[in-house]
């Protein structure tokens, strides 16, 4: 059943969109990351214009994060103070990001930058996860291997403006979450992702937050960053397709519930390796597309 998406101005199959939302939701349920980093490239694969794919993914993300945060909040696993500091950084970052996005669109390089960002981020991340996952798997086979230290002191802990975060049991510089939020805000605007897959490792390894607090806090701030990005994209670039976002959301919510149940039955390091392979596959597909000789050397775009 085809549906005409009013902003994307393409007709797509409703069930393909529901299934895509479901698959991404399933992944987010299994792995605990938002899945936006897979959603945007897949939307582009099925023919949604990249600019619309990015902005509508951000819109979908708002709903998906609300749903996720509520679940974590009920278990008391959200550090609101940390979330707020991340959020201020995220807000500033998304302002810069949306402006940058509009600029890139005017000079005709937005698709290049979106694709490049995805290849670089997914490639690095997939490789790191694969190495880490394989190592843990091997370490477990060798009994008596030394455990890694939970909290290490590095240069970032010497920064000024120290603040106490009770829920996370941390006393660190506010500049850290502020900067991290800023970076994620830019990524969110340019790539339509919540940045969970960058944020979650950064919160654990860079900030040193307890793992149980991380997903809820990350999702909490993503709601607001994604909401800011959605509104700014709607105003500056007119690229938010609410119908597309809603369809993805419906599929996503169902997928997430199935995913969460599956996730609890599978083993952690096996999951991480599976995710790493998936992430790498998307990166490779995007990279191959970028280097392949295009069918048309010329492209025509309507300018406002």
């Amino acid at each position, binding site marked *: 059943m085809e549906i005409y998406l*009013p902003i994307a101005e393409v007709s797509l199959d409703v069930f393909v969109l529901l299934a895509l939302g479901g698959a991404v939701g399933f992944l987010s349920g299994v792995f605990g990351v938002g899945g936006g980093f897979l959603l945007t490239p897949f939307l582009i694969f099925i023919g949604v214009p990249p600019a619309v794919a990015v902005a509508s993914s951000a819109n979908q993300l708002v709903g998906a994060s609300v*749903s996720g945060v509520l679940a974590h909040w009920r278990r008391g696993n959200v550090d609101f103070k940390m979330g707020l500091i991340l959020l201020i950084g995220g807000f500033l970052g998304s302002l810069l990001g949306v402006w940058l996005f509009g600029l890139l669109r005017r000079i005709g390089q937005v698709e290049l930058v979106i694709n490049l960002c995805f290849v670089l981020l997914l490639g690095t991340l997939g490789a790191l996860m694969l190495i880490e996952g394989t190592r843990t798997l091997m370490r477990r086979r060798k009994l008596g291997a030394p455990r890694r230290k939970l909290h290490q002191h590095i240069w970032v802990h010497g920064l000024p403006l120290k603040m106490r975060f009770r829920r996370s049991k941390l006393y660190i510089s506010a500049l850290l979450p502020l900067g991290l939020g800023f970076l994620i805000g830019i990524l969110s605007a340019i790539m339509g992702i919540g940045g969970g897959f960058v944020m979650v490792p950064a919160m654990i390894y860079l900030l040193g937050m307890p793992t149980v607090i991380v997903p809820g806090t990350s999702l909490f701030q993503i709601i607001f960053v994604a909401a800011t990005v959605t509104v700014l994209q709607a105003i500056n670039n007119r690229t938010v397709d609410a119908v597309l976002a809603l369809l993805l959301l419906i599929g996503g919510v169902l997928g997430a519930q199935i995913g969460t149940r599956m996730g609890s039955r599978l083993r952690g390091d096996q999951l991480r390796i599976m995710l790493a392979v998936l992430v790498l596959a998307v990166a490779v597909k995007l990279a191959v597309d970028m280097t392949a000789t295009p069918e048309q050397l010329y492209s*025509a775009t309507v300018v406002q």
Partner: protein
Amino acid sequence: MSARILLSLLFMLAAGAARGEPLVADLTSHLIGITGGFAGTSVVLFGATDGPGDVVVVVRGPEHDVAVRRKRRVAGIWVNAKEAVFTGVPSFYSIASSRPLDAVTTPAVRSFHQLGLDYLRLQLDRGPLREEDTPFREALIQTQQHEKLFSETVGRVDFLGDRLFRASLSFPANVPTGTYLVEVFLIRNKAVVSGQTTPLVISKIGVDAEIYDFADRRAALYGLVAVATAMVAGWLASVPFRNA
């Protein structure tokens, strides 16, 4: 439908003859509505002339600016490099004629009335086209032809006898919205002896049109509504699983 067209034709023929007009033509519909399942459509143009001659029909969509970019390989990846911005490009252009245009008229006439894709007057934002811009012009026309937005067809204007003619004007699914102009020319001895212009409106109708309009006119409010909808949907979704 055909009975109605025939009746209208007879009426027009009578009226045209009475007023001594060499050419009368009209469309079966002046409005095309694009709805959710729109997959392209066609509109019939019919008319009458006061004697033998050739008929050329040009359909032009609203004008807009188009940036044509050429990709170049930089460090292994293809990036948009050179750019030419064309101004006042018709968003849709199709031409149909009763006989091949070359046989019907001269290049001078074609150029004056912009009859045919080769005769479209295209301008760049920085002035008239230069020699080195030719590939960009060709690329623009090719891309639009590939998108089915530009087309040249011969023989789609059919004469029923000497004086009555009809043409089927087709529009693809991706047709841009706006006010179109349908120009009908009557050509005799290689010169245009009469012409008539009829408007045709193509617009989105229904829910999709309302969403598009809303997103365009009240962008900030649309953004907020989109966010609120997503939030409510996310909250609703978590309710059934509260105790899970």
